[in-house]
C-alpha cells in the first residue's frame, strides 16, 4: 500500500484561507490589547481629571482687604518680645484678636466679623511678626474670608452669601490667593483653617513604622524560606499560609490590631506605632511572596559560581542573591506600600479616626492618616469640606506617586549597577 505523503500545496486555496484567518486573528488580538490599554488609560485620566477639577479650588482661598490702625490700637508688646519665641503668646495676650474684630466692624459694619474667618487674626499676627514696624502704622491686610463666603466665591454657596460676595467684589476688596495653610495646618472644624499636614505627618510616621518592620522581616523571611529551609511538609504549609495571608481582607488585620496591640499590650490608641504595626502585618506577606519569587528567579549558576569560589552560604545570599533579587523585592515592596498607604478600614478599627488638632510629634502621639482624614472630611456636613476632601485626595495621590517614584528609582539604580 502506498503510504507516502502528498507534497503540501502551500499556495493552494485552503492554505491561503488559513493564512488570511490567521492574520485576521493576530490583528484582532493586537487591537483588543490596544483597546484594553486605552480603556485603562481612559479610566485613569478620568479619575485624575475629576479629582483635579474638584480639588484644585481647595488650594486657593478668597481674601478680603482689612484696614487696621495698629498705631491707634496700641498693642502692649515690645519689639523684643516680637523677635523672641513668645511672640505668639504675647500678641494673643495683648488682645490682637479683639483689635482685628473691631477693625472688621469698623470697615464693614456690624456684620463685619461674620465676613472674616476665625483664623483671620492669625494672618495679621504672622504679618506683624514678619514686620514689627507695622505696629506704628495703619495697614491693610488681606485676610481669609469666612467659610460660607469662600464657598460662595467658588460658586457653590447659598444665595445670601453669594449676594455678599457680589457686593464685596463690586467694592473691589476681594482677592484670591494660594491657600498654603492647607499644607501646613492640622485638622480643624473650620474649613478655611483646615490643613492636611497633621494627617500627612501621621501617614509618614505610620509608613515609616510599616516599612521599618515589614521590609526587613519580609526580606529575611523570604531569604530563609528560599535558601535555607528544607523542602518538607512544614515549609509547604508555611508557604500556603503566607499566600493566604496576603489575600485576607484588611479589616481583619484591624480587628487583630485592636485585640492584640490595644487590648493585650495596651499600646496607645490612635498612635502611628499601632497603625504601623497593623499595616506591617498586612504588608509583610506581600513582600515575602514577591521576595521569594525574585530570589527563585536568580539563576542557580550564580550560586554555584559563588560556592565554587569558596563563599559561605551567608556570603552567597548577601553578596550575590540579594543584589540580583532586589529589583523584584522592591517591586513587591512598592505594591505593598501603596496598598498600605491607602488603607482605611484597619486603621479605623484601631482608633485612628478621632479629631486630631495637633500634628503628631512622636510615634506614640495620637494621629490620623490621609485616607482616614479624607473619609472624615467627606462625612462632614459643612459645604466647605467638599473641595478640601478632593484637595486631600490630590495630596494623597501626590504622596503615592512620590513614594512609587522613589522605589522605582531605587529599583532602576540597582538594576543597572549590576
Amino acid at each position, binding site marked *: 500500500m502506498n503510504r507516502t505523503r502528498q507534497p503540501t500545496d502551500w499556495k493552494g486555496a485552503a492554505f491561503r484561507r488559513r493564512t488570511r484567518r490567521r492574520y485576521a486573528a493576530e490583528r484582532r488580538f493586537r487591537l483588543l490589547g490596544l483597546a484594553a490599554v486605552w480603556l485603562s488609560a481612559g479610566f485613569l485620566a478620568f479619575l485624575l481629571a475629576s479629582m483635579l477639577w474638584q480639588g484644585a479650588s481647595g488650594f486657593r482661598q478668597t481674601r478680603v482687604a482689612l484696614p487696621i490702625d495698629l498705631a491707634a490700637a496700641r498693642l502692649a508688646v515690645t519689639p523684643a518680645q516680637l523677635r523672641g519665641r513668645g511672640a505668639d503668646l504675647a500678641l494673643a495676650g495683648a488682645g490682637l484678636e479683639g483689635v482685628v474684630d473691631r477693625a472688621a466692624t469698623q470697615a464693614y459694619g456690624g456684620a463685619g466679623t461674620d465676613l472674616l474667618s476665625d483664623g483671620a487674626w492669625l494672618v495679621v499676627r504672622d504679618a506683624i511678626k514678619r514686620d514689627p514696624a507695622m505696629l506704628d502704622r495703619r495697614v491693610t491686610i488681606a485676610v481669609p474670608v469666612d467659610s460660607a463666603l469662600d464657598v460662595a466665591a467658588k460658586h457653590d454657596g447659598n444665595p445670601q452669601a453669594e449676594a455678599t460676595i457680589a457686593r464685596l467684589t463690586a467694592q473691589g476688596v476681594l482677592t484670591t490667593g494660594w491657600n498654603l495653610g492647607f499644607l501646613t495646618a492640622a485638622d480643624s472644624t473650620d474649613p478655611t483653617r483646615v490643613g492636611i499636614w497633621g494627617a500627612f505627618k501621621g501617614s509618614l510616621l505610620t509608613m515609616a513604622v510599616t516599612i521599618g518592620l515589614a521590609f526587613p522581616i519580609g526580606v529575611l523571611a523570604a531569604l530563609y524560606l528560599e535558601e535555607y529551609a528544607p523542602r518538607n511538609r512544614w515549609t509547604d504549609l508555611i508557604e500556603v499560609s503566607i499566600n493566604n495571608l496576603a489575600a485576607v481582607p484588611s479589616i481583619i488585620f484591624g480587628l487583630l490590631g485592636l485585640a492584640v496591640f490595644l487590648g493585650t499590650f495596651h499600646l496607645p490608641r490612635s498612635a502611628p506605632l499601632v497603625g504601623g504595626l497593623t499595616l506591617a502585618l498586612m504588608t509583610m506577606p506581600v513582600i515575602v511572596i514577591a521576595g521569594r519569587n525574585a530570589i527563585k528567579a536568580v539563576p542557580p549558576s550564580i550560586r554555584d559560581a559563588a560556592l565554587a569560589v*569558596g563563599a559561605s552560604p551567608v556570603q552567597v545570599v548577601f553578596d550575590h542573591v540579594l543584589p540580583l533579587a532586589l529589583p523584584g523585592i522592591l517591586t513587591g515592596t512598592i505594591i505593598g506600600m501603596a496598598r498600605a498607604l491607602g488603607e482605611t478600614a484597619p486603621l479605623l478599627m484601631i482608633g485612628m479616626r478621632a479629631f486630631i488638632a495637633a500634628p503628631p510629634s512622636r510615634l506614640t502621639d495620637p494621629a490620623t492618616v490621609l485616607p482616614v482624614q479624607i473619609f472624615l472630611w467627606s462625612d462632614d456636613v459643612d459645604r466647605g469640606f467638599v473641595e478640601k476632601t478632593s484637595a486631600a485626595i490630590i495630596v494623597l495621590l501626590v504622596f503615592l506617586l512620590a513614594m512609587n517614584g522613589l522605589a522605582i528609582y531605587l529599583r532602576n539604580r540597582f538594576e543597572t549597577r*549590576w
Partner: protein
Amino acid sequence: MTHKISAKDVSVFYGAKQAIDHVSIDVDQDNVVAFIGPSGCGKSTFLRTLNRMNDTVASARVTGEILLDGEDIYAPSMDVVQLRARVGMVFQKPNPFPKSIYENVAYGPRIHGLATARADLDLMVEQSLRRAGLWDEVKDRLSDSGTALSGGQQQRLCIARAIAVDPEVILMDEPCSALDPIATAKIEELIHGLKGRYAIVIVTHNMQQAARVSQQTAFFHLGQLVEFGRTGDIFTNPREERTRDYITGRYG
C-alpha cells in the same frame, strides 16, 4: 609520593538511585587528568564530589573516602568553604558574576581574607588575569561588566576567578562545550600553561580534547571507572573492551 587527591571506593547515591559505583582514582600534582565517557556515566557527578558541590543537592549521599593531601574532605572537621578555595571549579556554561571584571576576580581573595589592601588586591587580580591569558584583552576595562565579554573571554574570566584564590586543584566540567573552536583552542593552551602549578581534572565528552590536553585519562561508564591510564596508552591501545568500543566509535 602522596597523591594530591586520592579517592577510595567512592559511591554516590541520589536518594535510592546509585550514580557512582565504587570508584577509586588518584590525581597527582602537576598533572591533567581527563574524565571521558558517554552521557550519564557519572563523570560530572564524580567531579562534583571532589569539592563537595554535591552537598547542595539534598538527596545526595557519598560513601567511601576522598583525601586531599591525606585529609578526608568529608570529615566533619573539614571546612567546606576552605575546601572549595583549595579545590576550585570552572563550569560548563561560563558564569561570571554580574559585577565588574575586577570585582569578579577580586571577590574570592576578598572573602577569604587573602588580601585587604587595595594594592595587594590589584596585584592579585592582575596576576590571575595574566595567568588566565586575559590580561591584555581587559586591562583597560577592568570596570566593565564581566557579562559583557565574549563567551571565550567569560570562560577565561571564570578561570581567572578560580585561580585568584590560589587553589591547589582546579576542576573543569566540560569548560569548552559552549565555546567555538578558537576559544576552545585558547583554553586548551591555557590549561597546558596551568598544568605546572595546579592539579587539573577536566571532564569532557570530546575525546580529541581529552587526548590533546591530558596526561592521564579515566573512562567512566554507567557509574563505574572502567579504565584509568596514560592518555597515550588509552587512545592507542586500551586494555578494556568497553574503552576500546567507546573511543573507536563502536557504540553498539
